[in-house]
Structure formats: C-alpha cells, structure tokens
C-alpha cells in the first residue's frame, strides 16, 4: 500500500511539473503583451517597458518560471496583476460556486443515468429502453447555452421560479443558494447525462450476461437484489471512471454556463486570465485544477477498488 501511495504521489508531482512548464511556455509564446493589455492602446513604448520591468516580464522565461516555482512549493501562488489580489484568494472565492454546480449536476446526472440506464438494460428493447436512447441523443446533441437560454426565458422570466443570474452563497440562506445554482446545475447535468447513461446501459447489459447472474437467479434471489445489488455493482466500474472524467471537466470550468448564468466560477476566471495574459493567475488556476483532477482520479480508483473485489486482490498481490 505504501508503495502504491508513493507511486501515485510521484506520478502526480511529475504531471504537475510538466503541466506547469507547458502552461508557462504557451502563455509566453502566444502573441499578446500583458503590459500592452494593461496600459491600453495609448501606452508609449517607454511606459510599456517600465511596466514590464515592474512586473518582471523582461526577465528570461526560466528566471520567471523559477521565481514562480519557488513560490509554488511554499504554497504561494503569487498575485494576479489584473485584480491586484492573491491568486489563492481569487481561487478560494470561486471554488464554492464551481464545486456547487459540479457536485449538484454530477449527482443529478448520476441518479438519472443509473436508474434509467439500469432499467433500459434490464428491459432491453422495451419502451423505457427506447426512451433512454432518445434521452441519450437529445442530451448529447443540444448545446448547453441554448438550454440555458430556454431555462432563463421560462423558469426565470416567465414563471419566475428561479433567479435568472448570479450566485448566492449558502451563508445568505440555503434556499436562495440552491435556487441560484439549480438552473445551471440542471443545464450541466443534461450535458453530462447522455454519455453517462450510455455507459451505464452498456455496462449493465454486459453484467447481466455474466455467469454469476445465472448463479444469483438459481439461488432464487429477488429481481431487485439481483439487478441492483449484484449486476449494477459489478457494472459500476466503467460509469465511475466516466463520472470521474466528467467531474474533473466540470471543475476545470464551464465557461458557457457560467457566462449565461453570471456565475463567478473557475471557468470564467481561467478565460479572463488567458485573455489578459495574467500569467500567475492562469498558472495558479491550472495547477489547482490539475491537482483536483489527479485527486479525483485517485478517488475513482479507490472507489473502484471497493466496488470490485478482484482489483483489491490484484493490488494485494502486487
């Protein structure tokens, strides 16, 4: 086990290092000068130079990178020159928003996909199976900004069930908080449910045809126990991996949905950081998201381990 933790951690650090170098290099190579973006079109060359010096942008890239890396290992992500605030503060402000919609949309997508996917597989070629196919097609093909707009028009403006834009932190009341993230979460859930549903259905079909299912039937277990305790459990490995990927994607930002619903999330912060060439801000964000993705992958692996005894055995035998 210790060996495993060591391996995972060293892998994670390598990934972080490579990603940080790539981010840094890309931001330096793409055209666009942060000093020019800050000072605007009127700036004289001298003033641009002064600002570049002040920001340390005139130093060689490896010096800039080294400075940043030194800060990073001390958990100091530096200051955003765009906002004048600490990068860690800016991320901390946005994290609750992104986490909220990521968690809620993932939960919703998972519930729908598991129930519908399992039923579709159990009752293959039935009405519910066709219905699930339609859901898969629709959910994967309709763009999220359009669903967002439709939701705003009906749920926001016409019926006024939900606020049309903005985020209310839970400290200001759990009701308004949930109302503010409901629509964006549903929109995102729709975006994810198609893929997940298809994975669940396929995995479940596969599981139902396994030998141990016959065994369970022979034992005379009830249908519910057979399907939801044994088949679904063994069918969970592929969906769990898909969910891990989807959750990681949601954490990394959902710029379109965040813009449509005016949510101050990670996605829009990344967008602004790229547009304005805010090196430290982008670097901090990318590191943060990468770390989360690595952690999620780890959690998925652990979850799969618990679900599937075979993988646990392999681990011990290693």
């Amino acid at each position: 086990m210790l060996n495993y933790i060591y391996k995972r951690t060293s892998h994670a650090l390598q990934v972080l290092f490579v990603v940080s170098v790539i981010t840094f290099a890309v931001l330096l190579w793409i055209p666009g000068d942060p000093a020019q973006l800050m000072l605007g079109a009127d700036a004289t060359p001298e003033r641009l130079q002064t600002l570049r010096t002040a920001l340390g942008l005139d130093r060689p890239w490896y010096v800039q990178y080294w400075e940043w890396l030194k800060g990073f290992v001390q958990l100091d992500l530096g200051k955003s020159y765009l906002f004048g605030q600490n990068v860690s503060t800016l991320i901390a402000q946005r994290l609750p928003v992104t986490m909220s919609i990521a968690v809620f949309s993932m939960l919703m997508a998972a519930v729908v996909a598991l129930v519908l996917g399992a039923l579709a597989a159990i009752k293959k070629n039935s009405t519910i199976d066709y219905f699930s196919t339609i859901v898969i097609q629709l959910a994967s093909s309709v763009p999220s900004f359009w669903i967002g707009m439709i939701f705003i028009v009906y749920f926001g403006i016409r019926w006024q069930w939900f606020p049309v834009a903005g985020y209310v932190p839970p400290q200001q009341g759990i009701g308004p908080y949930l109302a503010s993230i409901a629509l964006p979460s549903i929109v995102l859930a729709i975006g994810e449910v198609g893929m997940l549903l298809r994975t669940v259905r396929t995995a479940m079909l596969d599981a139902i045809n396994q030998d141990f299912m016959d065994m369970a039937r022979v034992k005379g277990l009830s249908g519910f126990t057979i399907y939801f305790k044994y088949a679904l459990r063994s069918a969970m490995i592929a969906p769990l991996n898909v969910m891990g990927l989807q959750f990681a994607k949601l954490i990394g930002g959902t710029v379109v949905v965040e813009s449509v619903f005016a949510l101050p999330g990670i996605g829009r912060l990344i967008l602004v950081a790229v547009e304005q060439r805010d090196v430290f801000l982008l670097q901090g964000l990318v590191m943060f998201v990468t770390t989360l993705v690595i952690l999620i992958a780890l959690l998925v692996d652990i979850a799969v381990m618990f679900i599937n005894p075979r993988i646990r055995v392999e681990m011990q035998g290693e």
Partner: protein
Amino acid sequence: MRKKLVALVLILMMLGTVAGCAKTGTQTGTAPDILKVAYLADPQGLDPQRTAAVATFNITGNIFEGLLAVTPDWEITPRLAESYTISPDGMEITFKLKKGVKFHNGREMTAQDVKYSFERLKGEDSPKAGDYKNISKIEVVDDSTVKFTTASLDVELAKAFCYPWAVIVPAEADANLKTNPVGTGAYKFVEWIPQQQVMLTRFDEYHGEKAKIKDIGLVLIPDATSQLAALQVGDVHITEVTGNQIKLLKEDPKFQVYTEAMNATQLLALNMENKALSDIRVRQAIAKAINKDDIINTVVWGYGDKVGSHLPVNYPDYVDTNNVMAYDPDGAKKLLADAGYSQGLTLKLTLPKSYQIHVDTGQIIADQLSKVGITADIEIIEWGQWLSDVYTAKKYDMTVVALSGRLDSRYFLKRYRSDSKDFVSLISGEVDQLLDESGKETDPAKRKEIFQQIQLILAEKLPAAYIQTPHKLFGMAGNVEGFRIYPIDIYEYKDVSFKK
C-alpha cells in the same frame, strides 16, 4: 445509504425552488433604496490612475472627482475647484479649490493633495502620464490655490482636468487604491468581489448635492441576453442592451430605452504602407464600395450614424462629410481599373474577435468589397494579439476597430500627423501643418474651422474608410430618472433617482 443521499439532495432542491419563488415574488412595491446596474466586464482594479480600462472608469467616476468635470452636453464645469483662471499667454492655469471638501476617510482635501495627485498621475506606472508631460510645474500657492505651468502652449489645457484619471486621491490611501479606492465622490466604496459585484454607498459628507439613491450595486453579468433577462425580472434597473433587444423593451411599458451617440468612431483602417493601399485611388475605391447604411442596419440594427471622416457626429467640431466619398460601386470599379487592379486585388482584413460589432462589420465589408473585385481575406484574432500585431507592430492591410474620443478634437486627430507612428495615420503629411496650427490657435471659432478642414482632407485622402458613430443603448426600468451618457467614460449615479 446511497438512496438516503439521493433523497436528501432531491428534498434540498425542492426547498430551493420554493425559496427561489419567495425571493422573486417580493420584488415589487415602493421605490427601492438601491440602484442595481449590470455591467459586462470586470474593472482592472479601482485605481483610475493605474489603468487604461474603461470598465474601471465607469465605476471610479462615482468614487473620485477631478478639479473640473464635463456635463453630458460637453460643457466644462468646476467640480473640486471653485473657479479657475488661465493666464493671458495660456501657459498657466490656476485653480481656486472648493472649501470643505472631504475624502471618504474623513480628512479634508487641501492643495497639497492636488499637487500629490497630479505628480502621481505623471508617475512612472501611470498609463496616462504621457498626456500630462507638458505640465512642467505644479505649485501650491496657498492652502486652497494650485497653479499648473505648461512647457509649451496647450490651448485645450482645461479639458485635461476633466478626465476620470485626473482625479484627486489622498496620499495616505495610495498603496491600496486598486482594491480599496478612497476619493471625494458622491459615493464611497463598500466592496468589490471580482467577477461578481461592486457595492457603493452614499457619502453623507459629500461637498455638493448628495446622491439621491442610497446604495449602488453594480452586478457583473457577462452575457448580453442574461443582462436583458435580469432587467426583465427586476434584478437590475439599468443595463446596456443591443439593438435587437430594444424593440422588445419599447413594446413593454414597464421599461424605457435610452440611446445616445457615443464619442467614438468605427472605421476600416487602411495601412498606407501596403503597396496597393498607398495608392489613393485604391483607398477611394474601397470607401466607395462600402455601403454604410447596410452595415448600420444589419450590425447595430440602425443604432448608428454614418460618418465620412474621423470625428463622431456629436462632436462640437463635427462637419458632415458623408458626400465626399459616397457609396458608388461603379465609381469604385473605375478607380480600381485606373489604379491597375482591373484583374482584382487581394488584401488581408484583420478583425478583433472580442468585439462582435467589428467582426460583423468586417464580414459585411468583405462581401461589399468582393462586388467591386477586391478579395478581403478575413483573419479573426484575439484582442491581445490585435494590440501587439496590428496596433503596435502595424502588421496588417485592413482592420475594423472603433477609436474612442476625448474632449478635444486635436487629441483625437493628432494620430494623423505623418510622424505619429500610429497604426492609422496619414503618412503623406497633408494634415501636419493644420494640426500644428490648431495647437497654437487660441480663438475657438478659428480652431473649429481648422478641424473642419482636417475632416474634409481625411474624408478625401482616406487613411481609413470611416463607417459610423455607434450608439450606446441602455434599457432601464420605467421608474429610473436622471441617468445620462457622458462624452467620456463615466456614468454619474448621484443624479439618478426613482420616480415616485
């Protein structure tokens, strides 16, 4: 366990729905004491002397004030100054300061603060420092008198004291102005949550007429459709809208619409360093091939005024030059043939992606040019790249952009001097002498004549094909009064109120 969790989540979601209804249900009733305004892009900090971002000035115009101010009708009025005098030779301007002006931190403003602020504005990390280079000396004559001396004559000197960056800041708050602005304005700063909102509240010790509405909540909504939705459900009272949204608001008595020409010019810059474009006949052909009415009607739904030269229509020195190079595709073809391009001509058209209006305009122009035999190869690039490639390095053939104006024509037109090194310039030098004269002429009437001459020359020589003065469009709740558009990048919320 899993089932319990799912049930819990579903219950919470339902509660959220109910609470959401409750919240939106209570929004009607008496006039609120908070004015909510939507905005599209975050400010780049709230220190007006350390940024060039319009989004910053839009907000800080309420927190900070200058010695002078400009009205929506382009009039210069004293603000923190009580009066000002300009010496007979025009080289000195002396301000008598208003008494009893307080900063938001409670300290009284003095002449020392004025000196300090302008030195700060001229400082190394101030983007606008170049504009104030000409001020060679700032003297504190007494506690309430400050004298500025210029190195060379500037006939428009007073206007330099009206801009949203020429403001008075207290030295003790200097270090944190970017995140914690302290000024003398009618509103003081409460909080800024980046990418979310800015809150301001009335400054009760304000030296002038106090703000009518107690609180201002500026809410960031980065999507135009969502902004309109927020206005429709009453989450905001004022928001910018697009031309196609206006119709919807006009039909609804609960809302009102307010539009005004912007102090800006949208143009198709033509790089005279390009061989084909260095030929005036080619530039004139391009201008004649462009149907501006079509552009205005499609891109901004008619909310624009076509122009034939650089100054916007609401400028005091504006002269109508639309007929100098009117739409005439046949004439354009003839000019191109004369210039030796009867077989066709291919030019690159670079468009800034962040500005949909310019991208749309560029696409229509490309289509119109194709009808006279010019192929425009469209290249859409990011704003950061546009600034470095087009604006700074001048690596372009044609580009569509809008340039925003200041209060004096000379500042707006000086890029056309042959030696300006600006991305759009009249390098053949026909307006150099006139620009020099305008800087020395103290008689406003004569100055106006010079500027009109320059506009006529530009309309004919065409370092750019001039397209339109776009309009600013606002949608507002029906009960909002007193909101105005200014010729510089500010909105003064102190004059806004709710109808009883």
